[in-house]
Every structure is written in structure tokens, then in C-alpha cells.
């Protein structure tokens, strides 16, 4: 029983990262139907920017771990958000109506970001400062750290904030309108480009948060770190129903938990196979993902 509970905690931690990144995929997909291959690398960029901030603050002798972390988070999220917008402006905006070409452009963007980090920072793995110990709430044999709790709670808060933003604000309404019909939205006087850009900004911000948290929690970052997580997060987004915000969150946590259970009770070597088989089964049974709304088929 203990083990099952522990695996649940493990799964929720991984799932929080998947969910945060999956949100970026799902929002961009919902609005311009693009599988943004570079999104995982945006997450990596966020982690690296955060590390730069820590280094800078250390030079300025600002040592308070909470203060430095908050600063690193805010600056990294802001800068990464702008990086996402920049990527959209340069690589995607001119190609909005060429569905497959934009996919290649996204792959190009992914490589550019990866090897940009490679050149600017390091081909090697970089290590985050060990700021937070592994102390945690005392729950018997259960290993859980305060950092895990913070990651879990803050990602839930961010997701809730995003949900409110999309459903209760003007820009959110514009996003939803755009997702349904871009031309109609344009006719209604919505500044389509600005709305798409803000979608990229928001998605990248969340990815940057995940990136900095990854650095703090796992302590190791590298220029290729976004690839595998990006792939998983994309899977999670589809699992939940791509284009659907609660779906991405559900998909992220579900995938994290599934993986943990598969590794714990079956075999770690086969856990990705288990995850993908379940994904396929779910999609065969529910062709639009768990929470997917009926979306118009595009041929």
C-alpha cells in the first residue's frame, strides 16, 4: 500500500511537469492547429535562463533562496514568454496557412533553440544550485519533499489561473473565438496576430516555470532536456483531448501516474510502451481524447 501511495506521489510530480508543458502544446494547437515541436525546447530555454539569473544574483550577493527563486522564476518566465512570441513572429506567422510547412519550420525552430543553447551555454550538463533540501512533511515511510509540494500546488494554481484567464477575460474570449473560427473572429474586429502571440507568450511562460522547477528539483539541465519531456507532454495533451485546457492537465497527471505505476509494477523498460498502448486504446475508444470536444475534421 505504501508503495502504491509512493508511486502516486512520484507520478503526480512528473505529471505536474507534463501538464505544465502540455498546456503550451494544447493552447497553440487549439488556436492555430500547429504541433509546436519547439515547445519542449522553450521549456529548456526557460531552465537555462533561470540558471543565468541564479548566477547573476549570486554575483550580486543576493543569497536568500526564496527571493532569488522568485526573481529567477519571474524573469525567466517573462523572457521565455518573449522568446516564444519571437519564435512565432519569425518562424510561424508567415506560414500560418501552410499546415505542413509550418511543421518543418517548427522542427527547424526546435533545432535552432537546442543548438543555440548548446553554443551559448554548454554541450555538457549544467547543475542548478542545491537550494532546497529534501526535508518534507513527515508522513511515515512516504518520501515527499516540500519542494514537491510547492511544485504540485503552484502548478495547480497556475493552471487554475490560466483557466480563469481563458474563460473569464476578454483576451481569453478572443482566444476561444479564434480557436473556433479565425476568419469570423477577424471579422469581429479581433486582432488575430496579437491573440496568437499572447497564446505563445502564456504557453512559454508556463514552460519556463516548469523549466526552472526542473532545475531546482532534479538539479540537472541540458540543452536536449526538452526533447523527451516535450514528446511526453504532447502525448499528454492528445490523451486529454488536444485543444482542451483541463484535458491537458488531466492528460499530464494521468500520463505521469501511468508511467509510475507501469515502472513500479511492471517494468521500467516497458513503461513507455505501456503508456503508448493505453493512449492508443483510449483514442480508439474515444477518438477525441478524454475531454476532447468535437472538433472539425480537417482533411
Amino acid at each position: 500500500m505504501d508503495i502504491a501511495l509512493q508511486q502516486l506521489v512520484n507520478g503526480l510530480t512528473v505529471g505536474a511537469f507534463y501538464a505544465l508543458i502540455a498546456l503550451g502544446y494544447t493552447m497553440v494547437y487549439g488556436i492555430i492547429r500547429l504541433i509546436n515541436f519547439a515547445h519542449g525546447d522553450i521549456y529548456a530555454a526557460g531552465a537555462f535562463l533561470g540558471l543565468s539569473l541564479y548566477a547573476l544574483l549570486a554575483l550580486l550577493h543576493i543569497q536568500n533562496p526564496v527571493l532569488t527563486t522568485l526573481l529567477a522564476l519571474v524573469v525567466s518566465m517573462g523572457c521565455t514568454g518573449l522568446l516564444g512570441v519571437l519564435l512565432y513572429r519569425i518562424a510561424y506567422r508567415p506560414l500560418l496557412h501552410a499546415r505542413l510547412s509550418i511543421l518543418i519550420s517548427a522542427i527547424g525552430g526546435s533545432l535552432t533553440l537546442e543548438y543555440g543553447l548548446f553554443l551559448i551555454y554548454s554541450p555538457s550538463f549544467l547543475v542548478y544550485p542545491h537550494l532546497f533540501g529534501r526535508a518534507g512533511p513527515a508522513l511515515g515511510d512516504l518520501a515527499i519533499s516540500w519542494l514537491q509540494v510547492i511544485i504540485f500546488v503552484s502548478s495547480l494554481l497556475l493552471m487554475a489561473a490560466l483557466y480563469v484567464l481563458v474563460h473569464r477575460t476578454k483576451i481569453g474570449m478572443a482566444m476561444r473565438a479564434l480557436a473556433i473560427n479565425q476568419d469570423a473572429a477577424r471579422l469581429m474586429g479581433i486582432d488575430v496576430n496579437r491573440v496568437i502571440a499572447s497564446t505563445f507568450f502564456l504557453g512559454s511562460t508556463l514552460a519556463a516555470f516548469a523549466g526552472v522547477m526542473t532545475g531546482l528539483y532534479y538539479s540537472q539541465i541540458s540543452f536536449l532536456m526538452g526533447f523527451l519531456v516535450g514528446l511526453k507532454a504532447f502525448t499528454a495533451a492528445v490523451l486529454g483531448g488536444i485543444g482542451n485546457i483541463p484535458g491537458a492537465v488531466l492528460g499530464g497527471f494521468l500520463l505521469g501516474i501511468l508511467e509510475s505505476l507501469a515502472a513500479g509494477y511492471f517494468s521500467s523498460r516497458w513503461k513507455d510502451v505501456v503508456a503508448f498502448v493505453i493512449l492508443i486504446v483510449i483514442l480508439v475508444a474515444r477518438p477525441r481524447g478524454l475531454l476532447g470536444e468535437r472538433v472539425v475534421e480537417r482533411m
Partner: protein
Amino acid sequence: MKALTTQPLPFHRLVPVAAVVLLAIGLPIFGTPYLIDVGTLVLVYIMLGLGLNIVVGYAGLLDLGYAAFFAIGAYTTGLLMVRYHVAFWLTLPAAGILTALSGIVIGTPTLRMRSDYLAIVTLGFGEIVRIAATNFTFTGGPEGVYGIPHATIGRLVLRSPQALYWLGMAFALVVLVGSYNLARSRLGRAWLAIREDEAAAQAAGIYPVYYKLLAYVLGAVFAGVAGSFFAVKLTAINPSSFTFIQSVTILMVIILGGMGSLPGVILGAAVIIILPEALRAFDRVRMLAFGVGLIVLMLLRPQGLWPSRIGQIVKRAVALSEARAAAEIAAGAPTPE
């Protein structure tokens, strides 16, 4: 895909074709082994591109796990030759059958899905195949299969870069003629019709699921053949050659070249292989330059380097079906499935 008449090529199109033919023949005669090896790799990607082109270009199905079929072909040939000492030529039909079967297995439950969901399912399938190859003992695990014998014709052993190049060329030509014929046939028209308007195609007597599945199977078989060749070319295969990146690379070949266009596939394969090789001299910035290059190429030529009518049709069909669907949603009418 002019189905009814074939016109002679105008002069300005004849020149590049002649140049490519001259280059293809001249390379193994005058090139160094390295250049010939690169040329052979281009041929492998031409085969793969042509196969995926049937799935994506002709039938309009996005496939992100195409490397799986490539892997199945390569492993079939590798394992049969190493473990059971089967001659190369006999492994070809086996690879064909196995890849066709796997095309059916993955195609049947998924072809009714929306294309983007199909993309992730094929991605998952690709990963499943790769992980299985890594984990099973009979596939050699992460070390894969090594010591694969060379192909032979009679007593002639095809081991030199030149011999491998000509073997690859023969394979690529067969695949090229096959896909050219397909485009100009009843099947080609059926795919065209389905992609343009599924409901109208159905009204004209075409059963979409069957033809989509057929596209899958044929694409898989093409990849299987490419895989068989890859196995005897490399003589050692391991799962790391069949990653998601590989699937994406093959997809890049056809999109870069211009979807649905056969010369486009050839051009795309050449660029995808030669560009990083040409950049090899720049070592550290190689991959960065490749990434930037992809974006720039797409911005300059969004329809691909050598677009075909089909590529444009696909684009317009998407716009059209979107407009139609939007109109239907606006009118509150149900979307025809």
C-alpha cells in the same frame, strides 16, 4: 498526376532532369567512397520519402512513426540473414509481408481518427516498435544485429561503396517507377478523390477506409524494402537508427521537397542528407545552421522546393474543408463524419 494525357517535358524542365541523371550516373564513377556513401544514403531516403509520400502526399494521412516500418524491414533482413543464413533476396518478400501486416495492424483501428490523432498514434506505434526492439533479446537488444552479410548476385558480393550504390539505385528506381505508376492509376485517382472530398468520393463509389488502409500498407512495404537495403548497406543495425527523429527526418524529406511530387522527394532527400554533410566542416554550428536553414527554406518556399499540383490541392482542400465546416458550425448543422 495528369491522369489522362502525358505531355512531353518542356525544355526548361528537361535540363534539371538531365543534370540529376548525369549526376546519379557520374557519382559512383568519379566520386570518392565517402561521396558515394552519401549518395547511397540519399537513395535510402528517396525510397523512404517515396513510401511516406504515398501515405502523406497521396492519401493525406499524417504519419509520425514511419521509421517503425523501416525498422521492421531492416530487422527482418538482418535477423534472417544472421540467424538463419537466408539469402538477401529471399528476405525481401519476408520484409514485404511483415511490413504489410504491421501496416494493417496499426492502420485498421486508427484510420477513422482525425488526422492529428492519427499522427500521435503513429508516433506511439513508432516508439513501441523501437522500444520493443531494444528490449527483446531476439532482436539483439540495444546492440542490435551486427555482422549482417553483404548482398550477393551469383558470386558477386555487393560490398564496395559503388556496388551498394548501384544496388540502392536499382531499389530506388523500382520504388520510383512504382509510385509514379500508382499516381497515374485508378488507385491514385481514388486517393486524390478521398483527399479532396471524402463524402463526394464515397458518392462516386470509393470506399475511403479501404483506400486509406491500402496507402498505409503500400507505404509500409516501401519502407520495408528500404529497411532491407539499409541492413545490408550498414551491416549492423541497432534501435538508435529508428527513433522518432528518423520519422521526422523522412517527413521533412517530403515536405521540404514539395508534397506529393516525385521530383520533390528526390530533391528533398538530397537536401536533407547533403545539407548536414556539407555543414560537417562547421562542426559545432552544424546543427544550428541546419535548424536555421530549415526555417529559412520554409519561409522562402512554403510549398516545398519542387511543389506538385497535389501539394497545392492538399492546401486548398484544407482551407476549403475548414471554411465548409465553419459554415456548418455557424449554421448549427451537424458535421458530416
